[in-house]
């Protein structure tokens, strides 16, 4: 794949466009400026998309579940809303409803966060998106879940941590807004995995040694040789399947994957900070949401966490927050430092 002579529209992350717009040749600057302008207009349209009324009472969730009816249209038809206590009988609808509720409850009870934006934003999800659609995503406003193809993947609402993972992308967007590329993007993915796992552990009342530390357990059908999408405890061990390939996640900086695929390896290198969180939680014992979770949450909200932060910058901030909360040299501070060192991220 060499000598690209004509490129119609490559994906270029906005942060890179901003760099080009402020530097580079006149032609490049002009192209980048036009792209950014079109992008912002598009984002403004997206942001203006109508969201149903949220919650004005802190601590009270407001959920809206839609069905796309196997079409690729958003949001689709409203099929369950807050207060509809009777189960619909449709597994995807009910799992989405309860999964959003469990995720809201975790963020509220452990971090006093009132929904995605901390202002009571409505939690909106669409299920039955597309035909045989084997993915879930956050579209910048709402969560979207496919039914899976039934051959490799089950429906994506089957795993609570996946629902929480997608909702956490919304939280990140409203806080650090980490650029979705390279190490910042891998931090974005890792934070979504961390809180996805925390929501699941909190719901199940698990201590750290009882948790499976898997992301997306139950998503694969029995035809797939794999346990889940990712393993936080042992990155790279989640699956090894003839069709899907082998789990590419590293768990240490010496195995960091330099690639332009996957937005610069956002779902690949996230294994490194994932494992750091797991190491910290296991070293402290008890419930991961008592110390490790709040440390990561405080760092996500830390104004010093820039949009393009790398692993080291994030790690240093977790250590600083541990020092502020528990004291430098404390058990918690030492465990945080050691967790990052264990995965090869240099901290002081």
């Amino acid at each position, binding site marked *: 794949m060499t000598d690209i002579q004509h490129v119609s529209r*490559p994906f270029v992350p906005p942060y890179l466009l901003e760099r080009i717009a402020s530097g580079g040749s006149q032609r490049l600057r002009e192209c980048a400026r036009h792209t950014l302008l079109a992008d912002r207009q598009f984002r403004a349209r997206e942001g203006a998309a109508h969201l149903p009324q949220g919650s004005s009472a802190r601590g009270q969730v407001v959920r809206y579940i839609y069905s796309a009816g196997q079409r690729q249209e958003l949001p689709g038809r409203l099929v369950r809303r807050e207060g509809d206590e009777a189960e619909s009988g449709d597994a995807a609808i009910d799992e989405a409803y309860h999964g959003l509720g469990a995720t809201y409850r975790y963020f509220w009870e452990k971090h006093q966060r009132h929904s995605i934006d901390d202002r009571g934003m409505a939690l909106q999800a669409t299920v039955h998106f597309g035909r045989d659609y084997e993915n879930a995503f*956050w*579209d*910048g406003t709402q969560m979207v879940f496919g039914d899976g193809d039934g051959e490799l993947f089950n429906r994506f609402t089957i795993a609570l941590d996946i629902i929480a993972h997608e909702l956490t992308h919304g939280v990140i967007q409203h806080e650090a807004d980490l650029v979705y590329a390279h190490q910042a993007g891998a931090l974005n993915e890792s934070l979504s995995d961390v809180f996805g796992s925390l929501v699941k552990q909190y719901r199940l009342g698990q201590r750290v040694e009882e948790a499976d530390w898997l992301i997306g357990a139950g998503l694969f059908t029995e035809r797939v040789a794999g346990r889940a999408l990712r393993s936080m405890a042992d990155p790279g061990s989640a699956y090894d399947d003839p069709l899907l390939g082998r789990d590419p996640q590293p768990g240490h900086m010496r195995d960091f994957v330099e690639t332009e*695929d996957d937005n610069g390896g956002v779902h690949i290198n996230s294994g490194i900070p994932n494992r750091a969180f797991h190491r910290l939680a296991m070293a402290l014992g008890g419930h991961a949401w008592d110390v490790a979770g709040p440390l990561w949450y405080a760092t996500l909200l830390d104004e010093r966490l820039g949009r393009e932060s790398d692993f080291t910058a994030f790690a240093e901030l977790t250590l600083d927050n541990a020092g502020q909360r528990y004291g430098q040299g404390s058990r918690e501070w030492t465990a945080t430092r050691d967790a990052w060192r264990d995965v090869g991220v240099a901290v002081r």
Partner: protein
Amino acid sequence: MNAGTECQPPPLGISSRLSLRREGGIAHFPGLAQPRLVCCDRLGEAQRERLWQLLAEAARCAAAPMATDAVDRRRFHLAIEDAEGRCQWSVELDEQQMPGALLRLWRDHKPLSRG
């Protein structure tokens, strides 16, 4: 960097190859991320013309900006290569922008090792 402009694909010759690659999603699966190749020497003239029309449609769809706040979404990278494997044209677009016929083409072609 020509967002908002349309760049038509070059004519498809008998030695042209189309590479379709899907990226992104909630996880990176190396097996599913491998490019799927359509060799034009196996297509008749009318099929090549139809394929060209689909690629031109994809180029038009790709001119629309992508949703940059979206994460875990998938996107497709389409490229035409010549007989020597040089890329003559490429385009990248959101999964939702992908013409249905090209999506089916991707699904119907299992990953092939590059010769």
